[in-house]
Structure formats: structure tokens, C-alpha cells
């Protein structure tokens, strides 16, 4: 390994990145765009769910219940209609996700039997939102029902304490206290950015030399295959680390995601992940000697598993067992797990020993394979 040749190679590659508008766009604009698009676009929270109401009774009691819905941040009561047909139309045309029907005998039943049904219709097209709105609606109604009960007991002159059998759950949420899905997703986006930028840029690097005919000259010089690989990847490694820093700054200062871990652990794991990504991109570029094909395949083998199987947005615990087994092979899984832990839990490298080891093993194996991928002959 000659430092002179290594530096010459890195320097040349760096000049080429800086001078190529396409590479610059990928290196600088892509991370920002991805952070913004995914940071704002992917939200698993349901807030301001649009609600239509069909209040058949229009009594004081029914209005009291509806007020609860109006007061909830989860619901946005948009309109009151006067028929099921209108409700059906509103759901069909996506004007509301949830409809509440209060029967004409609501208050009478409540008074006479102490039991009154209320109908809630949920648009189940998007199961996630449907589940959430169902849950929120139940909660709102349960609270109302508890208050009605409470008032009744008071009016009967019974002491509140007499209503026994009440177990109160005192929930404390750790790490993502506000249950913001953004806090859960954004750390994972860093992995997506690394996979996208790293794989895209490196997949072009060797293919470009073949396409432009500069490879033959390169091969006729004394440079060794590992010098070609390292010399070419060092600039991309630096670009990747800079992008990681950019993502970190945006996530903390722009999106307000808490960062509780140490910078050292963040950059150490990012470096390992980058080695894997760059090594894969390089090997693809060596194997497929044209830029378009190489970049397509690079995206397929890095971005796809990272976005679907890393658990960045789609929790691995909820995947079917077979798919869950596959995720153990996806290197991004370990990185995403570590990132989320560093951001939200602030745990150190020690607590993440297994994941760190898996990532390090991946980096070592891919790195080794990459040094062997490039051969200095034309045939």
C-alpha cells in the first residue's frame, strides 16, 4: 500500500465529485430532501381525524357527548348531517374517517335503563388510522360514560369512595414521552440517507471509468487493486460522514428530535454502516460496468431492504415470523436499532453490544470482499 498512490487516487476522485453536478446534487441536496420529505411526510400519528355526526336526538345529553369529541385533539368534528345516506356519502367521498350516530332515544335510555348505545362508524381503508380512531373514540366515550356514572352516584348521595373496584392505570411513557411518531422515524431516516447517497455515488465510480475509457490507462499503472478501492472510497466515506452530520443537525435542530446519546457512538456506528454500504456499491460497480445498471442495482440491494426491513418505520416485531427472520440478514436493521437507541434512549455502545458486533462483522466481511472484487486485467 503506497500512500503516494492512495492520495493521488483520492484526490482525483474528490476533484471529480466536486466538478460533477450530478454527484454534488446526490451528496448535498439528496440528504436534505430526504430528511424533509420523510420527516414531514411519514407520520404514523392520527390527529384531527375528520368526524361527521348524525345526532338523531339533539338533546342536552347528546350535545354533551359531542362536545367531548370537539374538545379532543384527535378529532375534528366537521359537520352534522341528518341522514345515514349523507353519512355514507361523506365516508365514500373521504370527507370523514369516522362518523358518530346518536340514536333518538339516547337520553331516555340512559335515564331509564342506565345503558345507552352510541354508534361509531369507522373507515377501515387505512387500518392504522382506523385502529387509532376507534381507540380514541372508545376512550372519549368511556370517559363521558364514567362522568355520567359519577354524577349519578353523587346525586344518589353515595360517597365516591363507595364505588369500589376501580383500578387506575398510571402510565408513564419512556424515551419518546410525547409518543411522537416523528421521533421514532427520523433516526431511521439517517440510515436511509446513508444507504441512498453512499450506494448511489460509489456504484458509479468504477462503472464511470469503464464507460469513459479511462480504466485502461489506470490499469496500466502500478496502482494495486486495494489502492484503487481505498483511494476511491475514502472521498465517499468523507462525504457520507458529512451527510450523517448534516442529518443529525437537521433532526435535532429542525425537527426537534431528542438526541440523548454521545456523538462518538453515533459516528462510530455510522462509520461501520458506511463501510458496508460503500463496499456493496463498489462491488456492484466493479461487476456491472455501466453507470445506469450499477446505480439501479445498488438502490435495489441497499435502499430497498433499508426502507422495508430495517424497522425504521415498520416495526420488526409486528412482521410475520418468516420476514422477521430475514431482517436479521439486513445489515441496516442493526444500524437502525442502534440509531434509535442512541437518539431516544441515550444508551452507550455497551448496551448495544450485539448489534454493534453484527454491524462490525458485516463491515469486515464486505470490506474484505470489496478488496478482492477488483481485478487489474481486461479479460
Amino acid at each position, binding site marked *: 500500500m503506497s500512500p503516494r498512490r492512495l492520495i*493521488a487516487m483520492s*484526490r482525483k476522485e474528490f476533484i471529480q465529485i466536486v466538478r460533477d453536478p450530478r454527484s454534488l446534487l446526490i451528496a448535498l441536496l439528496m440528504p436534505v430532501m430526504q430528511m424533509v420529505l420523510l420527516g414531514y411526510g411519514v407520520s404514523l400519528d392520527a390527529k384531527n381525524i375528520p368526524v361527521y355526526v348524525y345526532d338523531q336526538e339533539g338533546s342536552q345529553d347528546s350535545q354533551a357527548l359531542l362536545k367531548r369529541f370537539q374538545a379532543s385533539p384527535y378529532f375534528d368534528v366537521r359537520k352534522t348531517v341528518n341522514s345515514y345516506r349523507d353519512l355514507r356519502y361523506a365516508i365514500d367521498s373521504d370527507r370523514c374517517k369516522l362518523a358518530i350516530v346518536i340514536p333518538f332515544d339516547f337520553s331516555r335510555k340512559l335515564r331509564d335503563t342506565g345503558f345507552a348505545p352510541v354508534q361509531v362508524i369507522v373507515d377501515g381503508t387505512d387500518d392504522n388510522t382506523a385502529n387509532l380512531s376507534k381507540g380514541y373514540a372508545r376512550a372519549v366515550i368511556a370517559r363521558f360514560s364514567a362522568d355520567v356514572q359519577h354524577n349519578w352516584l353523587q346525586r344518589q348521595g353515595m360517597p365516591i369512595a363507595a364505588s369500589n373496584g376501580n383500578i387506575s392505570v398510571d402510565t408513564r411513557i419512556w424515551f419518546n414521552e410525547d409518543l411522537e411518531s416523528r421521533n421514532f422515524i427520523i433516526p431511521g431516516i439517517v440510515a436511509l440517507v446513508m444507504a441512498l447517497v453512499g450506494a448511489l455515488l460509489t456504484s458509479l465510480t468504477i462503472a464511470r471509468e469503464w464507460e469513459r*475509457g479511462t480504466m485502461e*490507462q489506470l490499469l496500466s499503472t502500478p496502482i494495486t487493486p486495494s489502492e484503487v478501492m481505498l483511494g476511491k472510497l475514502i472521498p465517499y466515506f468523507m462525504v457520507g460522514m458529512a451527510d450523517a452530520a448534516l442529518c443529525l443537525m437537521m433532526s435535532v435542530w429542525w425537527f426537534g428530535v431528542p438526541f440523548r446519546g454521545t456523538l462518538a457512538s453515533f459516528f462510530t456506528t455510522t462509520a461501520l454502516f458506511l463501510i458496508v454500504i460503500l463496499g456493496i456499491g463498489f462491488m456492484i460497480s466493479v461487476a456491472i460496468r455501466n453507470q445506469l445498471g450499477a446505480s439501479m442495482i445498488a438502490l435495489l440491494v441497499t435502499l430497498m431492504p433499508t426502507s422495508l426491513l430495517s424497522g425504521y418505520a415498520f416495526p420488526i416485531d409486528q412482521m410475520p415470523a418468516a420476514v422477521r427472520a430475514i431482517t436479521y440478514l439486513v445489515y441496516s436493521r442493526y444500524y437502525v436499532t442502534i440509531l434509535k437507541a442512541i437518539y431516544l434512549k441515550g444508551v452507550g455502545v455497551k448496551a448495544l453490544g450485539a448489534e454493534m458486533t453484527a454491524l462490525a462483522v458485516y463491515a469486515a466481511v464486505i470490506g474484505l470482499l470489496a478488496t478482492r472484487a477488483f481485478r487489474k*486485467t481486461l*479479460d
Partner: protein
Amino acid sequence: MPNDGNISVRVDGLVKRFGSFTAVDRVSFSAYRGEILGFLGPNGAGKSTVIRILCGLLRPSEGSVIVAGVDVGKDPEGVRHHIGYMSQKFSLYNDLEVSENLRFFAGLYGVDRGIAGDRIREAISLAGLQGHEHDLTGTLAGGWKQRLALGCALLHRPEILFLDEPTSGVDPMSRRQFWDLIHGMSGRGVTVFVSTHYMDEAEYCDRLVLMNRGRVVAMGTPPELRHLVKKGALLLAKCEPLGTALQILQGSPGVAEAAVFGNSLHVRVEQAEDALVTLPAMLESRGVKCVSLKPIEASLEDVFVQLAGEQSAVRGGPDR
């Protein structure tokens, strides 16, 4: 002939196969220090393949190749420090400045930092690119690009220089300048391999290897090769119409070969004196006007036409 100690390249029984296709077929030759060795032949003759094998870019299928004392088949990397190579296609970086290209290759060849600056300046003046050091290489004209590529290939002062069709697509003026540079190299003891399909350029070489379809057809100095045609004599015929004249001549007794050269015919005959009398009469009798017919000195192109013709005759027909 110089003695063995001065041999810088020795190729013996070299065969290169790509699948079932034999691109280079039992080629043997030697090159001596400071010699300009020309590879001559049509496209697909195997010139580039031989040069790439000598540079260690392709592995020989059979035979031994010793370049600068290194067995290239066994140690393709070992030869790299001793050689400079200019591939057929321009292969410097168009998006790098002239000086950046030079600095890059100086680095790759491991030229000592202390002397790299001087070498780069020399290369720039050799290419005549003073004042253009910071131009993007892609913006240079063809001749300048070629000379810059040569400058890059010489940065580490190689003993042997391989130039694969260095002047293709370059204007005649620049070709001339380029050959002056090549002669300068050989004067300094650098062995130069040049492949070309320009016959006129072949005359600038010390020795020539004529290749056709992967085989060496003939080898020697330009005068030696021309002498090969001296079996018989060569006549230049200007006739009207040319095509008919060619057909008639190719079948005539006493005519070994006839070929079109520009707007006239080169006719190889067994006996010049007889032919000068009989051919015009015969052509006139078949309705072809013979404007002039005179003996000429054989060019290398004639040599090539003759030798390639003999080779295909041996192989059974001009085209497989």
C-alpha cells in the same frame, strides 16, 4: 543485429484466444533497446491485443512474453513500473485540468515528490501546453490531447513505451509533431512500440511487424520489406474505366496481382519489360483506355497487399 543484452522485449509463440476465437496466433518477435517497432495491419489484425498482453492488461493463453526482464504471463504487475502505455481511445480524465491529470498519473506511477514538479513541467512543454495548465482536458484539441497523453505515459521515465494507434483521428500536422516526439524518445534509449494503420507512418519505424488476422505476416526494416516485393516488378497503371481494367488485369497471364490505389492501379508483374508492351495493347483491345503505365518503387502498402494476399491464399480464400 544487436546482441541479446539489448533485448527489451521477447515474445515467443504467443497465442491469445477469446473463447473459440483466436485473436493472436503463434506470434514471436523481439525488440531491442531504443528501437521503434511498428505494428502494421488492418483493424482486427491483433495489434492492440498484442500490445495489451505486453502491458500485462490481458493474460496470454500460450507462449512466453518477457518485457524488461519480467515474465508478463506470471507477473503482470511487475512490468508496470517499466512501461508507459497509451491506449487506442483517449483515456485521460476530461473533467480534470491538464495539470491535475499529470499530477494524478505522477502519483500513480509513484514519481518522487521532489522531482514530480519538474517532470510535470517537462510533460507540459513536450505537449506544447504552456499556458494551458489549468484548462479542462476535455476542451483540448485532438493533437494536444494525444501529446498530453504521451506526456502522462512518460512521467515515470519508462524503458518501454507502448502506443496503440496514437495518431488515429489526429490532423496530419499534429501527427508529424507526434512522430518527432517518438523519435526523440527512441534517441534517449526508450524502446517504442507503435501500432498504426497509416502506411505512411510505418516508414518512420526502425522495424516493422506486419500482422493480419492474428498472425505475423512479415517482419523487417521498411527497405527489407519493400525488397520482398522485388520478386517481379510493380507497375502503376492509369486506366479508364478503372473497374473493368482491374477485372481484366487480375486474370491476365504474367500478372501476379492487381489492386486499386487511389485513382490508379498497382500491377505486380513477373517481367516489367514484356508487360509494358503487352498490357496496354491487351487493355486497348478490350475497350479500356490505358492513359499511362510505368514502373514504380513498391510502397509498404504494396507489400502488405501482397503478403496478406498470400496468407489468405494459404488459408483458402480471402474471407472465411
